[in-house]
Every structure is written in C-alpha cells, then in structure tokens.
C-alpha cells in the first residue's frame, strides 16, 4: 500500500476495537473442551478486522464513492438492462413479513408469501404466454440450465436419448453454451446472416434428429428482432427439438410479442433486468422459468399451487427434474419484481417497451453518422455499433469506453456480440430522459472527433477517475486474491 491507496479494512484494524453488540449470554458458560473434541477447537482466531462502527461506515462510504451505479449516472450497458431501481421495491422487500420469515415455517404461517409467489407466477405466465412458471432458479444462467434439464428430461421420457445437441447462434450470450455443457449437451453454433439474423439455411444444415433444442434471444444480442421466428420454430419443431427463449432481452417486447406466441417451449426471465431486481453489483438475481403444457411435469419441485383460496407448496411431482436450488428461489428479488409489475400495470409495461425502443432507435440514428452501424434497420431496446472506423485511426473500442468514463458515464458493453468487430452494445432503457441521451450522444460525438484530431486523449483515457487503467496481465500472472497479514 502506498499512501495514496484506499486502505483495506484490514489495514485500519486495531487490536481491541469492536464494532458489534451481541446479546447477553445469561447462562453459565461451560469450558469448550468439555463440549468439543480437542482436535476440533480452533486454535488461531480468524484474522478478521477489529474496527469501530464509525470506522466501518466511513470505510464503506469511501468505497461506495468509488463505485458507479445507475443512481450515480447513465449506465447504457447493453444486454444488462440497467434501468432505474425503484425505491418502493427496497421498502417492500424489507417489511418484516417478507424479510424475516423462514422457509420451513408451517405453510399456514406464510400464506402472504406463498400468495405473492403464486400471483407472481400468474403474472409471469401472462407476460410470457407460457402455461406454468417456476420461481426457483437464482439467476438467468441458472434458469437456462434448469430449462435445458427439463428439455433433456422431456426427450428422455420419449426415449429420444440421441438428442445430445443444443444449437446456439454465434451472437448468443456466453451463458447459453456454458449452460448447455452443464446440462450435458454438446453445443452447435448456427451462423448469422448479412442482416444480423439467424441464417435459416445454416439452421436447416445443423438441425437433425440429434437436436435437443435451439436457444435464442429475441430480439437477439444485436438488438434485432428475429423476424423469421415462426419459420425457425417450425424447423426446430419438425426436427423434434424444443425452442428455448433466453429472456435477457424481454424489455424489448413487453406487450408486443410473447415468447409463448412465438413458438418457444421454455423461457427464462431475468427479473433483475426487465423487472428491476436490482443488479446489486453482480447479483443476486432471479431467473424464473416458464414452460408450455407438455413440459410442466418436469418443472423443479416444489411449485406454488392454490386450492380453495389456500396456497401450498406442491412436491407431488414424480417426473420433476428435482431441485435446482435450496428452498424456493430468491424470494426477496421476486418480491421486488412483483412490486414493480404491480407499480406498472399492463399499460405501464407496454409503455416501458415502447419508450425503451424509441430511446434506442433515437440514439442509434443520431450516432450512426459518427460510428459504423453494421446492421441498418430499426433496432429494439438496444443496438450495436462498430468502432472499426476509429480503429483505423488507432483508437480501439476499449479506448472509447475508457474515454466515456471521463464524462461520468458507464460505457456500453464492448467486444460483444462476437460477430461484430470492435462492438459497442448500447442499451439506454426507458427510464432515461431525452436530455440524458442527448448529453451522452454529444460525448460520443466529441470522442469521435477527438479520435480524428487528438487520438491520444482517447487512447490515454481515463483522465478523471480515481485510478488509471489497471494492469490486468499482472493480476492474472501473479494472482493476489486475498489480503494476508505480513
């Protein structure tokens, strides 16, 4: 540590200070040696910090000031739907009756919680156009794996043991092929065509009687709607495969097109994206999965059911793929998502998508004079620009991203999707005002001009952050992953 560094909590620790207030012990204590075998009594205390309560608050306040969230400023990180996180959600999730209940309480004592889960299931069924929903998966990737395990169980129940392949577009999120592997499938990649959409001919080439499923986001990661979706569904279904919908981009189609109506058999949602989770610095999320009728019997158990006004956890599901998570999912996140849906209502959700799509198209059109637009058509909730014009001038997309930090913005997702050179994936969301978009556009235009006139200022960015570009090679070559007392 040099004196400019932000101290670690361990570095401000002073023996003898405490930051806690435990209850009184009240009872006569018995020597530990009488309660535990000698070999199992800890000899050296864990080296945790010794600090006062104010030390803790100052430390984390200092850290928070070194962190950019949606509440700090614009965060157009494509594919992540960094929309405003409503404050009522936080209040509701902290009500004692939701925050402080135990998963193994008698069902009669948690009817409010089960009722909320049931109603959320019902709302998600309507929103997705599916027939049943499980709230158990903890996040999007977890939902993908859950969905694929159900598809696997479905094929196996038909004796279709040879269906070992999952088709994934080259523009897909990395979790898609990774989840396929964890579910025991082999991944086959299908190419995109010159319009940025799945190449139907290539799809027909790779599909076969070994196809278990096609995983798709719609709109895709370029922000483009797969307009041949019905034909694709037919190709897959005729081959006996199932269609999987990655709900990461659902913000683009609320009230406009439902996965269930597009022919999808399984869908996962990212409640921390579309339904204002929040993201929490990387989690927790929630990844409910919806299915069509013929897959309901394979859903993880339990699911929440209702009978004569009473809610209960239904474990009687003999063909279930089992349990994908202890207890019933990330309930606290589901409470937030439910609160959001109830705050918006049907017309609110429709406006969400319309405004998100207007915002994205507006930015795309205004920026297309300054950056290459690989696919010139209406986008949905996000769009992808290419920095190849700037690259020729020696400025990489990474530099542009770092330069945006100087303007107080979180940069777009960069170098993804993989099928666009020097990609910048921009998702403004519906909660940003035109003024915010205009200011960001102005910054992007300025950077494009700097790239021509004064590329060093971009190449050497950021200039205003608490820290300059970090040596990532050093971090990987000589990993230091924890503090250790010298």
């Amino acid at each position, binding site marked *: 540590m*040099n004196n400019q560094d932000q101290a670690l909590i361990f570095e401000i620790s002073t023996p003898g*200070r*405490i*930051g*806690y*207030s*435990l209850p009184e*012990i*009240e*009872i006569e204590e018995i020597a530990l040696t009488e309660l*535990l075998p000698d070999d*199992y009594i*800890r000899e050296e205390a864990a080296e*945790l*910090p010794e*600090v006062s*309560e104010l030390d803790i*608050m100052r430390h984390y306040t200092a*850290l*928070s000031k070194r962190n950019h969230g*949606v509440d*700090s400023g614009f965060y157009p990180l494509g594919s992540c739907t960094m929309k405003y996180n409503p404050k009522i959600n936080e209040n509701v999730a902290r009500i*004692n*009756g939701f*925050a*402080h*209940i135990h998963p*193994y309480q*008698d069902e009669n004592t948690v*009817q*409010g919680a089960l*009722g909320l889960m049931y*109603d959320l299931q*019902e709302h998600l069924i309507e*929103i997705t156009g599916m027939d049943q929903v499980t709230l158990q998966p*903890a996040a999007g990737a977890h939902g993908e*794996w859950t969905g694929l395990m159900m598809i696997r169980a479905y094929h196996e129940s038909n004796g279709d043991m040879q269906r070992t392949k999952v088709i994934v577009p080259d523009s897909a999120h*990395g979790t898609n092929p990774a989840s396929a592997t964890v579910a025991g499938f*082999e991944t086959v990649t299908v190419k995109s065509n010159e319009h940025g959409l799945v190449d139907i001919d290539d799809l027909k080439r790779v599909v076969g009687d070994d196809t278990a499923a096609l995983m798709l986001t719609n709109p895709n990661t370029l922000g483009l709607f797969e307009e041949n979706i*019905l034909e694709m569904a037919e190709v897959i279904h005729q081959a006996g495969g199932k269609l999987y919908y990655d709900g990461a981009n659902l913000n683009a189609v609320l009230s406009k*097109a439902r996965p269930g109506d597009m022919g999808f058999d399984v869908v996962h949602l990212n409640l921390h994206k579309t339904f204002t989770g929040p993201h*929490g*610095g990387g*989690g*927790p999320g929630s990844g409910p999965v919806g299915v069509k009728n013929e897959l309901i019997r394979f859903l993880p158990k339990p699911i929440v059911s209702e009978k004569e006004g009473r809610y209960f956890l239904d474990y009687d599901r003999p063909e279930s793929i089992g349990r*994908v998570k*202890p*207890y019933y999912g990330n309930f*606290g996140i589901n409470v937030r998502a439910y609160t959001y849906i*109830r*705050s918006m*209502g049907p017309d609110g959700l429709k*406006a969400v998508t319309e*405004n998100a799509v*207007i915002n994205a*198209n507006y930015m795309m059109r205004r920026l297309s004079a300054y950056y290459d637009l690989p696919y010139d058509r209406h986008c949905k909730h996000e769009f992808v620009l290419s920095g190849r014009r700037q690259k020729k001038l020696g400025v990489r997309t990474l530099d542009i991203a770092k330069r945006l930090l100087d303007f107080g913005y979180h940069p777009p997702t960069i170098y993804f999707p993989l099928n666009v050179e020097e990609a910048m994936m921009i998702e403004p969301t519906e909660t940003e005002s*035109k003024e915010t978009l205009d200011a960001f556009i102005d910054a992007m235009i300025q950077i494009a001009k700097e790239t021509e006139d004064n590329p060093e200022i971009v190449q050497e960015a950021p200039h205003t952050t608490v820290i300059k570009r*970090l040596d*990532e090679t050093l971090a990987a070559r000589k990993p230091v*992953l924890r503090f250790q007392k010298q």
Partner: protein
Amino acid sequence: MTMTNLTWRNPNNLLCSNKKWRSTHIDYNMIWFNILLHMKHRYLPMTEQDKTEMLAAIGVTTVDELFSDIPEKVRFKGEYKIKPAKSESALLKELSTLAAKNADLIQYTSFLGAGVYDHYAPIIVDHVISRSEFYTAYTPYQPEISQGELQAIFEFQSMICELTGMDVANSSMYDGGTALAEAAMLSVGHTRRQKLLVSTTVHPESREVIAAYALGRNVEVVEIPHTNGTTDLDELKNLMSEDVAGVIVQYPNFFGRIELLKEIEQVVHEQKAMMIVSSNPLALGVLTPPGKLGADIVAGDAQPFGIATAFGGPHCGYFAVTNKLLRKVPGRLVGQTVDENGKRGFVLTLQAREQHIRRDKATSNICSNQALNALAASVAMTALGKNGVKEMAMQNIQKAHYAKKALQKKGIDIVFDGASFNEFVIKLPVPFKQCNDALFEKGMIGGLDLGRFYPELTDHMLVAVTELRTKEEIDTFAAEVGEM
C-alpha cells in the same frame, strides 16, 4: 399513468360523457384520447413532446413502425391481462397487509434453523447495502469506476479464506446448495472420475441440488449412511474406491453434529479423491477450519452473517479452494494489481475460466452471483471482527447446550447426542404437528420436522438455538415441549 388515468378508462367516469357535447367537440376529445395514449409514470420520463421529436429524428411517424419487424402472426395485441397499476401509497399498503399475513421472526421466537438462521445482524449492514452506488451497479467490468465493489469483494474473499482456512475464495455463488453442487462438479472435472459420495448428514436439499447437477453431467451419486447422527466411517471406507471423484460432508452437519474430518480426510485422500466440506462459516469461529483438516474445497452459505432469512433467499453461497485448484474455480475472482501510476487497484481476474470468454468450455455457467449479499456478509464479518465471530459462535454453542440440558431435565430425549454446534435433534412426546401448533399458540416457531427428509425420524425435531434466544425463551420452550 396514474390512478386518475385509470378512472378515465371507464367511459362513465369521463368528464365529457354527454354524447352530444362529445360529438360536437371532437378536438377536445382527441386531447383526452392523447393523454390516455400517453402514459405518465414516475419511472418514465418521456413526454409527448420528447416522443414527437425523437420519432421525427428516427424518421418514423408512429411507434408502431418500430415494431413492424414483428410478424403479424406473433404480434401481441391489446394489453396483458394482469392487475392494473397501483399508486405508490396504495401498493405499499396492499403489500404491507399481505406481509402481515406471515408470522415473522421478529414477532415470533424461532427455534428453526436447518440451514437458515435467525441471527444478530448488525444494523450497520443494512445501511451499507442500502447505499445505491452498490446496489444499483452491475458486475464491475469497468474497474476504474468500480473500485468500491471490487475492493469490497476482495475483502470478502479474504475473510472467507480466513474463516475456512483455505487459500482462495471466489466472489460468491447463488447459495450454499448450488455452491456445493459446483464443488462436486469441480471434483468430477478435476479427477476425471464419475462418482460422488455424499453423506446423508449433508443438508437434504443440498443433496437434491447435487443430484440434479450430477444428472446433467451423468455422474453417479452414492449416499453414505450415518450412525448416531454422524457419517458412518466404516460405510465410507466400504464405499470408497479409486473411481470416486469427491466425498461431500457437512461440518457441522445437518443434525448439528461435528463430523470427524480428520478421520474422513485419511480415507478420502488415500484414494486421491477430493474432500469437499460444507460449512456454516459462523461455526468456524470456534471450530478448527476445514482447511486445516485437509479439505480441498469448502463451500457453504454466508447467510448467518447479516443476511435476512427472506423465506430462503437470496442468501450468499461462498466457495473456497486450495491454491492448486485456483484455475478450476467457478464464477468471478477479484485480484489485486496496480494502475499505470503504480497505485493499488482491483480487477476481475483469471476470466479465461468464465462463460463469457470460454463459453461451452467454461468451468461453470454462472454469471450473476450474490454480490450484494457478499457485501452484506463482509460488513457483518467486519462488525463482528476477530473477537465477535468467536464470541457469537461461542454463544451459539453455549446456548444450544443449555437448551439440550433444559429439555433433558423435562424428560425429553436428545437423539444423536454428542459434540454439536447450535442445533440438535429431539424426539417429541407427541406428533410433530401437534407440538408445532401448540408452540405457535405460545408465540414460538418450533424446529424442523425431520420426518419430511428422514422417514425414520418422524416426530423428531431439529432444534436450532442461536445467540438471539434468551434464557427465558429457552426455558419456556423446554417447559412447553416437556409438558406435552
């Protein structure tokens, strides 16, 4: 949109309901119509003026044109049949009323644990995680503006290493159950063996999750029976073979007992399998850390550190390994490095393991983790600190021991008696439901009905006694159960 808008939707409520008036004042009606079309909502800043300007800049005249690529056949028409929007105050009232239908652990005295515990959560935890610079951020992909999150996670990793006695910890997993399943899969991948042994004293729901993950990878799972509430060592020896990838035990185990990791370690490593230990990290305040007892992977849930029970989630899985498994770890790792000026900073590192780089060859499919809850656990571990973690763990052991004695005095049998942490098993004098209902009448939430997971333990209760239980509460509980 506001509540007022909703009333407008009902034609009877239209101010201009006079037919004749309406038909002669079409322009005025159009204004109403436009207001109806243009939803006002506190989360949606786009005004009608903005929309007009933006559509013009895009080069379209209506919003619908932007959706013209959605084939007519799949286009959703109309509105979702879901509940209408509610105003902030009305919704808060409705959901507060709904929450009040649940019996919460603030009002009731709980003896329920089984993996989820009612513990002292320093109040400062909620103040820190309520700072929206943390909770409204995403994964720290841009380190220059994410140093706060990165450093907090680096500190989390350090604290987990300290408690578990391991070399490396990741930035968090979904929960204890999936962390354990990922540990199991790591052992399968690392040893290239296709069989797992799991003790029946591991949390039953974690075992179910392991089974689901194992099915995905075509891995065989064999359960090791227990004797008197701890893993049967002879059975372990019998089941052990050179095709076993990993042996999974819990410490303290599901019944609260302290597994003899030293003995287990010898059996496991003799066959070059991996020892995977699921630990309540609070217990490690007083127990010898699994890392000191030869564990290859330690995984579990940090919920006891400042994380609300929240009906079972979100909690916070943790994952710790020895140095040699560093590059096999699932999920994100934060590493220390320097910037161009030599200043210390933190970055996500060793990302070549992860799904966004390696896709189908990644060590796991995990992307989102439990970052905010890892922050909560860090704050709680910091507040408790070196002394507090030990003292709190000690209080759990002492109070649980006191409860055992109090129950025994009332004639209740302690089943599987022996060294334990904050949980133990009792045999109930009456059917479980009768006991639990009676306790509830007295303002108490009884322990877990073990019969639901272990049929041979019908009418047995797993009782948890944390530091929050007072002497009076324990005495009352013992008296009530004893008098049934």
